[in-house]
């Protein structure tokens, strides 16, 4: 017995291979990433446990069962940020260890597809983290029930997650080949994330205050301004990442 492999269907691609397009390739890579995370549970459970532990630590360290305003917003943002850092450290490790980078560079797809997939995956991981983390945060640390301002909180966190995912994808790709990546990634990630952290905390602060405004009033006062800042941050780092990523993967 020996192998035979029909060539007819692929023959027209021999001279000029056509890739599936960046978005389609990114969708394929994202579905593999989510499948692998579902099987190995390497990232999300660790992030969730870390953030829950951080809330418990804050609860006892601050010796206060009820936070509001600036302090509440700061604690939430810092805990989420450090939880995200766990994923940023390991986002591309599987590709590095199992040859995913080389397999991708041999396929007719732009490397940006991998960046898009990883950014989308990190965004999803952060949303999953918050799905568990925010109720725990409200229970352990928040002075008031946040249900009335949930729309605003979700909007701020969505833009914050996007910024973290874009910058996290970029920093992770930049540092993954370094032996000191677990030191380098935070050193790059945290300072660059400061504008996002300031924007997110400033936007959340009135929403988590003792007497929170309605969403409409919040948007009309400072909320709209900070949401714009967060959106601009996402846009700027999205453009920077899309310009740089191809070079990061190549030799």
């Amino acid at each position, binding site marked *: *017995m*020996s*192998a*035979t*492999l*029909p*060539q007819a*269907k*692929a*023959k027209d*691609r*021999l*001279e000029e*291979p*056509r*890739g*599936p397009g960046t978005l*389609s*390739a990114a969708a*394929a*890579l994202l579905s*593999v990433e989510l*499948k*692998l995370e579902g*099987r*190995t549970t390497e990232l999300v459970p660790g992030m969730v446990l870390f953030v829950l532990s951080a809330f418990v630590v804050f609860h006892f360290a601050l010796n206060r069962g009820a936070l509001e305003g600036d302090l509440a917003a700061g604690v939430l943002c810092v805990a989420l940020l450090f939880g995200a850092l766990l994923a940023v450290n390991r986002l591309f490790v*599987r590709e590095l260890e*199992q*040859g*995913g980078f*080389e*397999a*991708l*560079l*041999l*396929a*007719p*797809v*732009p490397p940006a597809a991998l960046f898009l997939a990883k950014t989308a995956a990190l965004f999803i991981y952060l949303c999953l983290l918050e799905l568990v983390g925010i109720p725990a945060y409200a229970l352990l640390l928040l002075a008031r029930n946040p249900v009335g301002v949930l729309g605003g909180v979700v909007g701020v966190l969505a833009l914050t997650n996007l910024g973290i995912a874009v910058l996290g994808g970029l920093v992770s790709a930049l540092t993954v080949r370094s032996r000191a990546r677990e030191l380098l990634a935070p050193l790059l990630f945290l300072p660059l994330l400061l504008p996002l952290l300031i924007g997110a905390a400033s936007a959340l602060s009135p929403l988590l205050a003792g007497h929170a405004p309605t969403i409409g009033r919040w948007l009309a006062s400072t909320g709209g301004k900070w949401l714009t800042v967060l959106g601009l941050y996402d846009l700027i780092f999205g453009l920077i990442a899309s310009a740089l990523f191809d070079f990061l993967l*190549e*030799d």
Partner: protein
Amino acid sequence: MPPAVELAGVSRLFGERAVLRRVSFTVDSGQTLAILGPNGAGKTTLLKVVAGLLGPSQGRATVLGAQLPKERAQLRGRVGFVGHEPLLYRDLTPRENLALQCRLHDLGRERVEEVLEAVGATRFADRPVKELSRGMVQRVAVGRAVVACPPLLLLDEPQANLDPRAREWLEPLVGKESGRTRLLTSHDPEGALREADLVLGLRSGSPVFLLQADAVGRRELEELYR
């Protein structure tokens, strides 16, 4: 017809250390070049340079008409690479790995079954790669490399971990009868000489000889491996 692979004075450095030094050769379409040499000779690095995975530090490399490293994007999808690493996700099954490759090459799902059958991997297609033997993984790695029928195959010890039956099975896909242009490395000089049209001897990154396969004798091999 222009040569499939043409290297002129290619060197590759890692930091200060030269892993390849002024390597030059030409391989025409459909020909096989065997790259022989002791461990650490630079064989794998040379294949990675030709694949566009590593850029040459000096010299000129033209592969399938693409100047490297500038035009390496033109090479994507046209080179099949079988290396020491299988380039497969260990937590996915062979079927899932090949399905990903098919999607990245814009090929239909039916291609997955064709490739699984061709490499004889159907019976273990749904077991995670991490649970397979090295030989089974090598079969899937060959399948990944040939999924889009690339005109150029770069084979870094392709027969490693394969039993004689598997070697025979995969012969039409990656062997001489595949009709493709091939660059292969091997630690089995006699086997490689049977496969090759041209032979490049490398030692410590430098070419020792570049000869027609039938001109390589015991003396050249002893000199290379001394």
